[in-house]
């Protein structure tokens, strides 16, 4: 208990801050911050597994997040029958061709020894395959995109409940990580960082521009929800009664009946969105706690010890007979899969998929700031990092505004400097993140909650 005091204290302060936002701003804002904190925490846990456990740098978080989102769309949207009948065959055909191509290349790799001829023949097979696939897919893609382009224009999904996409998102991200890992894991740390960053950009480019898959930059909106809709809630009796019970003391102050009804309606409307957010919080909490238990168990298992050994001295671990390459690949896939879950959760919460919004600043670098600030190698630290950094990211604008007003208090309200500074308040969040990261890296390089391994 004594040992964990700093962890408990840090989390209490964090929850206190969120509750303060609830009291002073609104519970709606507090809960939406809390939900995104939870999602960020899942992402940081994924990155932390790779960086903290194994020392692998992965700057491709954005790509896995987007794949998670893609899974949410492909699982939950109802299939567009017309598009399937018009272009489905072509798409399936090209998918089949891709699989054949992969197998042919694998066969050649296995069958023949490394030589120039082999390299050239593989290259020519890939180029030829891409050309053939383009010719097969093109008419199909055109037909699909022509089907009611304002509303659909894509194949749609499976029409299943969106919750399943959390698993599928993990699967997608894991498969991508497997491919990237096979290709890039042998690289040096900073090369790996650059390579993963660029590959994630390629993933985003594909998602953005392949309209037949997810409508590209036209976005998919109105995804199904695992939680009830506000409009429905506002008409259910038990919910209205619940809200009435909660706000009884306030309502009793109003004597006029019609006024009382109006106030109650207001409370119901506010309450409904809070309730929906609470539902999400509950779902997300389940995921975060499950992942936390699993990752903690893994950290203290023989496997976790092995990973730390590999991280701290790769050669020694190799000499002890641990398969470093395989373990790196495994942890790369696991971490990325967790990020994929977070991506699906994010889209589930927003109810829309906007490929244009995936930017490395928000989905890669910010997550890394969270990992570093929270404490790499420590799961509690990673989660805390997600909370602290996201909280600051959102609350930076109000804090910045306050600071600007404080420092320029002596200036006239129409003074050009003051106006300019107030206009640029949103960018203070970058400044805060940067300075925060630099300070932490300098004075507390292991993060707020440093890694602590107890040997039992």
């Amino acid at each position, binding site marked *: 208990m004594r040992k964990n005091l700093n962890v408990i204290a840090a989390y209490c302060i964090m929850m206190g801050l969120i509750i303060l936002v609830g009291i002073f701003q609104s519970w709606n804002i507090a809960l939406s911050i809390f939900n995104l904190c939870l999602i960020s925490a899942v992402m940081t846990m994924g990155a932390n597994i790779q960086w903290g456990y194994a020392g692998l740098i992965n700057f491709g978080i954005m790509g896995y997040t987007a794949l998670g989102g893609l899974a949410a769309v492909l699982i939950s949207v109802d299939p567009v029958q017309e598009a399937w009948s018009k272009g489905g065959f072509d798409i399936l055909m090209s998918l089949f061709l891709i699989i054949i191509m992969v197998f042919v290349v694998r066969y050649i790799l296995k069958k023949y020894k490394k030589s120039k001829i082999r390299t050239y023949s593989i290259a020519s097979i890939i180029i030829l395959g891409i050309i053939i696939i383009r010719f097969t897919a093109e008419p199909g893609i055109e037909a699909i995109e022509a089907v009611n382009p304002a509303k659909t224009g894509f194949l749609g999904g499976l029409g299943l409940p969106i919750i399943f996409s959390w698993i599928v998102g993990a699967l997608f991200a894991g498969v991508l990580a497997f491919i990237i890992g096979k290709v890039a894991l042998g690289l040096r*740390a900073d090369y790996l960082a650059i*390579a993963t960053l*660029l590959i994630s950009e390629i993933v985003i480019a594909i998602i953005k521009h392949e309209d037949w898959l997810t409508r590209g930059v036209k976005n998919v909106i109105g995804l199904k929800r695992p939680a009830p809709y506000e409009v429905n809630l506002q008409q259910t009796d038990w919910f209205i009664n619940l809200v009435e019970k909660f706000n009884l003391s306030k309502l009793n102050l109003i004597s006029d009946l019609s006024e009382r009804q109006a106030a109650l309606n207001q409370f119901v409307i506010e309450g409904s969105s809070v309730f929906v957010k609470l539902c999400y919080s509950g779902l997300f909490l389940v995921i975060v706690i499950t992942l936390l238990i699993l990752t903690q168990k893994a950290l203290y298992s023989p496997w976790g010890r092995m990973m730390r050994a590999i991280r701290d001295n790769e050669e020694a671990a190799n000499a002890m007979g641990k398969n470093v390459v395989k373990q790196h690949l495994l942890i790369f896939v696991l971490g990325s899969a967790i990020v994929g879950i977070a991506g699906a959760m994010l889209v589930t919460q927003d109810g829309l998929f906007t490929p244009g919004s995936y930017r490395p600043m928000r989905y890669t670098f910010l997550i890394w700031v969270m990992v570093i600030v929270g404490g790499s190698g420590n799961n509690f630290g990673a989660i805390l990092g997600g909370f602290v950094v996201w909280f600051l990211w959102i609350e930076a604008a109000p804090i910045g505004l306050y600071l600007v007003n404080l420092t320029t208090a002596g200036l006239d309200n129409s003074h050009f400097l003051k106006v300019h500074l107030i206009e640029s308040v949103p*960018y203070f969040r970058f400044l805060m993140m*940067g300075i925060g990261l*630099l300070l932490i890296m300098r004075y507390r390089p292991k993060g707020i909650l440093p890694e602590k391994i107890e040997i039992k």
Partner: protein
Amino acid sequence: MDFVNAIILLLNYIFVPALAYGSQLALGAIFVTLIYGILRFANFATGDMMSFGTMVTILFTWYFQSLGISLGFLPTALLAIPFAIIFMASYMLLIDKFVFKYYRVNKSPPVQLAMVSIGVMFVTQAVVRIIIGPSDRRFFDGEKFLIKAGEFKEMTGLNEGLAIKSTQVITIIVTMILVSVLFWFLNKTRTGKSMRAYSDNEDLALLSGIDPKKIVMITWIIAGILATIGGALYGLDKSFKPFTYFNNMLPIFAAAIVGGIGNPFGAFLGGYVIAFSEILLTYAYKKFFMYVLPESMEPEGLVQLLSTDYKFAVSFSILVIVLLYRPSGIFKGKIL
């Protein structure tokens, strides 16, 4: 005649733009490579440092414009660049003193320095956006075209016009001068040689009496020059927008690695490799084939290998292929 038309077409749409874009990338790539070779980390703040330099150039340009100073047909920004370089170099040295020095002295692993550079990236980005705002800015003045498409058509009587923007010519000329001076400096002067020695083997260089402080300082100053000029040329040619500059970091990294990271000459050529492959692979060749082939063989589609949406993806794919087959780059890296 058709053949000449086809050549002009390619020159107009592929060669000239790619040469200008490649020069801009090359300057950034040399910047990345110098930092990597001498300070030994991947600088993720590259794009934002370039945007900082450009911002200072723009501010000076505005100041000169308000004073009524101009260079006639040349853009005023050329006059502003030297002042911006002084400002930028001191910014770089300031960052080094307060941020990077600590880790260098402590011999931190390169990964940690790369993380620190992400912190610098955030701060620089914030400073740029707070000072000049995130919107698109054009600061070009003076003569826009060296050769206009219409004039060219009249002059030669060809069907295809060749338009050359003055910014493209300025970009190419300035890049050539800058790069030649830089290579002369690295290969012929004492300081340049000691920089190369330091990059090649730090311990040996220290043993032979090379002052690391001086090397680091000069590296940051050169980096400041490259960042300012590269950024300003890009801004003159296209436009200045902080977000675009941040994104440009990615092809710049690709260029540096393709050329062999740590090797300035490789980075220089890498810039052109990336630029040409981006444009060659995403250009629609329909018109070209219409000129070259007989009428019966004219292509139906656009004859485009990849849609322009995948412009960035092309350079990254090249990078991935290079990393797989030749991780040290086309021109062996790490020699400087």
